[in-house]
């Protein structure tokens, strides 16, 4: 088992060495867009991209002083704009998801651990504000037993009013390399053979692990 793990991590790092950070960010962005739930925030990747953006911004300032050809400046500017767009879209997308599933995320440590520190702060304040608002506008006026934010009434045995992402939904995914026979359900009745460059529509829940492990791309 350990040798298999080593092989895999070696393969992953080799693949990462060959790809640029922008490519990795684009993959993270696409996966995030296509996945129903929030995925793990790639802190090192985002800080690397930020550094590169900052570096290029400084270089562009230097260009203005040294009088580099306009064409070259405009090309670098386009590169910068594209990277900025990707990063902004990625961060914004995550904030949207956090906003949508605030309650669900803030009650699970696993989900909270997927957020960046800033996102955690956002999630916390989002939950507080929402709760306060609901409390003031509706819940305080409801009779006892029906005034919980998360439960319909006292008789509810679990939180039944928290919006959760639908993990049962179907997603489009593309395999990067051979995954082999893959079990789609718990009972093993449905098995697909995932070979490289295959395109499938599958239930997100069943391929969740592959997405997290970076072995399959959502599209």
């Amino acid at each position: 088992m350990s040798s298999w793990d080593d092989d895999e991590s070696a393969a992953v790092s080799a693949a990462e060495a060959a790809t640029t950070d922008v490519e990795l960010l684009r993959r993270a962005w696409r996966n995030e867009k296509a996945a129903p739930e929030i995925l793990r925030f790639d802190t090192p990747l985002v800080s690397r991209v930020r550094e590169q953006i900052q570096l290029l911004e400084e270089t562009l300032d230097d260009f203005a002083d040294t009088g580099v050809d306009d064409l070259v400046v405009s090309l670098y500017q386009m590169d910068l704009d594209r990277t900025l767009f990707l990063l902004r879209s990625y961060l914004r997308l995550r904030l949207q998801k956090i906003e949508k599933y605030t309650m669900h995320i803030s009650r699970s440590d696993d989900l909270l651990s997927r957020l960046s520190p800033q996102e955690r702060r956002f999630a916390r304040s989002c939950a507080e504000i929402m709760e306060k608002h609901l409390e003031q506008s509706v819940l305080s006026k409801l009779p006892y037993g029906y005034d919980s934010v998360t439960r319909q009434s006292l008789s509810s045995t679990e939180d039944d009013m928290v919006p959760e992402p639908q993990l049962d939904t179907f997603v489009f995914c593309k395999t990067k390399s051979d995954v082999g026979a893959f079990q789609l359900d718990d009972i093993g009745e449905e098995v697909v053979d995932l070979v490289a460059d295959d395109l499938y529509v599958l239930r997100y829940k069943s391929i969740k692990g592959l997405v997290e492990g970076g072995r399959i791309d959502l599209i």
Partner: protein
Amino acid sequence: MAGQSDPHLSMFSPSEVEFVAEDEIVDIVPNIRMDALNMICGDFGPFYPQIPTKVPLWLAVALKKRGKCTIRTPDWMTVDRLTQVLEAERESPREFQPLPFHYIEISKLLFDHARDDISDAYLQVPIVLKNCLLLVVIMTQVRSLIEDIRDVRFHKVETGLETISGRTHAVKLKNLSAMEVNIVRPFMVRTLQAFYKHDSPQMIQQADTTGSKPTPVTDRGPRRDLRRR
């Protein structure tokens, strides 16, 4: 933020798909001398006049717009190759032919920004014959071939949708392209979700407890094999 109201069904906007396609690498022939560009998205160049080099499509289009290069038409975008693809596409009703993942976006961008290069690329006839009319004819031919291919492929997707049932747990769509995925996504996801929901044991159980059907819950019948497209 338009189009993001229901992020789970139509997640990528067409312009976002195009944005991704713009990072595909194409061959250009520059007509200027320019130092290498060390960009965030990669290192490209150096550029010398008449020496072909590889750059991402957005960079190629930017240079082309300023008249600094010609874009080489990709191999798959010639009349010969596209005619072959179209024929193969018509002959195999259950499979999609391999085309670049972003063929629709790439061809659109090239049609919009590098139409003169498209006809030039494989026009091996004497200069005398290279008159405007001929260029237009070839352009139109390439464009209509791609449109035909899109139509044939999309028809396959549509007929494929009809075969989805409650037992469909996976749909194989090998070689479907990015834009095609994007177009078919809302229908496909909704259909599969609806069938999945109504086929789930809980739903069947609910029907049982209301007394309409006395079928045992476990009896879900043999699962069918995955559908091949």
